[in-house]
């Protein structure tokens, strides 16, 4: 059997596929962050908490209201987006003209409050959420056993990611959004309701986080700290991709998943740090990020 870099190809392919699956989560989450930063200039530190909220809404729905996974996949992002919109209307809105730091502090504080109250009511040990019946089982691909649910994660997140990219970069609505960030006064002069546009954008970014949360619920335990574990990595992904770049966030998310996957084969001890290493190198070589526009 030929070997690649000292490992049988089966092992390597398996790891690459796994990397792609994890990358899908990074892409989905960093996309939401990138949209919010790109259009609102807010560094949304509550993103991890909103991701966790998505998973919890799904869990609560299943256990107390009998709402199944598929409905939750639609419903949870809407519920969490509504909470997000309320936050935007009452608090975030006041900070657009201030320094980035204020938005960061506010959202970070909110994240701590949300997580803290969930820890108080649900504990940290995590609640089980089973994989929906239609997506149980898996296929043997020859080089690895691929659970159906993991395949679904790739498909679902790629559709959402590229759909979002298309909407922002290729449609009329998207052009309003982009115009709104460039010159809100001018856009308003054309009769477009810019504040509403911004509110909805924040809601959409938050909904993306909640969607990722529902996707994650069956494979990771639904726990109040699930978001804070992931958030730092996702921020690194956004920085590597270039703050505010939509395509950059998606591609970098997938790429970092792959790099992390390979690290897990060659030197597993470094698998949690490799992304930050990449971040340092990218910042040294291209301070605006891989896809960012040089200032």
């Amino acid at each position, binding site marked *: 059997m030929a070997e690649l870099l000292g490992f*049988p190809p*089966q*092992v390597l392919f*398996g*790891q690459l596929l*796994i*990397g792609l*699956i*994890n990358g899908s989560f990074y892409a989905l989450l960093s996309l939401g962050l990138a949209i919010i930063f790109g259009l609102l200039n807010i560094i949304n530190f509550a993103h991890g908490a909103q991701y966790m909220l998505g998973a919890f809404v799904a869990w609560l729905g299943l256990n107390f209201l009998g709402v199944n996974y598929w409905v939750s996949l639609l419903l949870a992002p809407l519920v969490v987006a509504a909470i997000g919109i309320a936050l935007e209307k009452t608090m975030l809105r006041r900070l657009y003209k201030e320094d980035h730091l204020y938005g960061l502090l506010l959202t970070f504080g909110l994240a701590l409050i949300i997580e803290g109250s969930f*820890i108080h009511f649900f*504990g*940290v*040990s*995590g*609640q*089980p959420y*089973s*994989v929906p019946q239609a997506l149980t089982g*898996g296929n043997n691909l020859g080089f*690895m*056993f691929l*659970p159906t*649910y*993991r395949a679904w994660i790739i498909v679902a997140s790629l559709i959402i990611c590229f759909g979002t990219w298309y909407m922002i970069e290729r449609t009329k609505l998207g052009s309003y959004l982009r115009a709104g960030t460039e010159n809100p006064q001018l856009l308003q002069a054309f009769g477009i309701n810019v504040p509403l546009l911004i509110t909805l954008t924040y809601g959409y970014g938050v909904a993306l986080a909640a969607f990722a949360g529902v996707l994650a619920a069956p*494979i*990771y*335990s639904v*726990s109040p*700290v699930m978001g804070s*574990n*992931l958030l730092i990595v996702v921020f690194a992904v956004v920085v590597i991709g270039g703050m505010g770049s939509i395509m950059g966030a998606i591609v970098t998310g997938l790429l970092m998943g792959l790099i992390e*996957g390979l690290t*897990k*084969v060659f030197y*597993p*001890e470094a*698998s*949690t*740090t490799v992304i930050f290493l990449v971040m340092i190198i990218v910042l040294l070589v291209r301070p605006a990020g891989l896809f960012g526009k040089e200032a």
Partner: protein
Amino acid sequence: MKMIKKLMCSAVVSAMAAAGAAQAKGISDDEVRIGYLADMSGTYSALAGPGGLEAAKMAIEDFGGKVNGKKITIVSADDQNKPDIGANKVRQWIDVDNVDMVAGMVSSAVTIAVNKVVEAKDKISIVSGSASSAITNQYCTANSVHYVYDTYALAHGTGEAVVKEGGDSWFFLTADYAFGHAMEGDVTTVVKESGGKVVGGVRHPLSTNDFSSFILQAQASGAKIVGLANAGADTTNALKTAKEFGVVDAGQKLAGLLIFLTDVYSLGLETTQGLQLTTGFYWDRTDETRAWAKRYEERTGAKPTMVQAGVYSSVNHYLNAVKAAGTDETSAVMAQMKKTPINDFFATNGQIREDGRMIHDMYLAEVKKPSESKSDWDLYKILRTIPADKAFRPLSESKCKLVAGN
């Protein structure tokens, strides 16, 4: 008459002597203070945390809130699994708040740091949560007791049983820090002694979110047994991923080396069924354990883990020793605790050895199938009892400075 006078005199004299002795020793500053230290909100808070504090309070209430007429009080703190925070807190407790005994204690690293403080200040600690067998081996002190379980007991209990049933080739998923390394080392020894071999392993960072890559490597190794030398959220995540990738369906078996009742409850039986594990306590074992667990559940909403049950038992044993010794002075209480066997719902004929290890029967358990479980917390069946003298590291192998001959 003369006789009676003489008797009266001696009675008075001895009564005065007894009073004098009690005054010299007695209860320091008229209160017995217990400090409960644990991870109260993080990864390990479900297995000990607030539940353990409630167990300690129950022990004090059951004792009547007073020992020898002196009030018993309890304080608690969150060590956040950080040795420096834990050690500083305990130093403050002892110096400022006059705490006499520290209970709970989860992360092994915190425990080793705290025990050094407790030894230097000559107070007492009773460790219920930590795993590392080093606590009563190279790090043993005359001031500390390790109460519930340790890595040696887990490795021997689960490791031996698994190899005996034909699981003779192992692949380890090991948490990359002191506890994981110790666990892997202890199990490796057991596996080799029992005629098995270790074909490989991965050391993963603490608090790994995604185990799919490591599970894939475990599958590729072809080992019969995948040993989980990790704890808390890492173990539950690894088990979940193993289930998803069909590890058990493909013919490999999992051996969880440190599994708590709350882990199994959180994962559900569908994922954990058939898993073998070693535990120091299971609530549904005898009438006594059931009765206590019921009272505990009424207060906390959950059944107790072995750690939480151990906290109750250890606080109770401590208070009994204070009562019998008539003082909370360290050496007298330690001597009293070591010479009194522990007989309660938690342990039968438990005995604290000179190295501080409390030896008691351990249990090899198997997680039930969903069809066998009759209620939410009906999770284990006990396969066999591992007798106290077999469960823990024999003194002849001890490196502890307190053991004769060392």
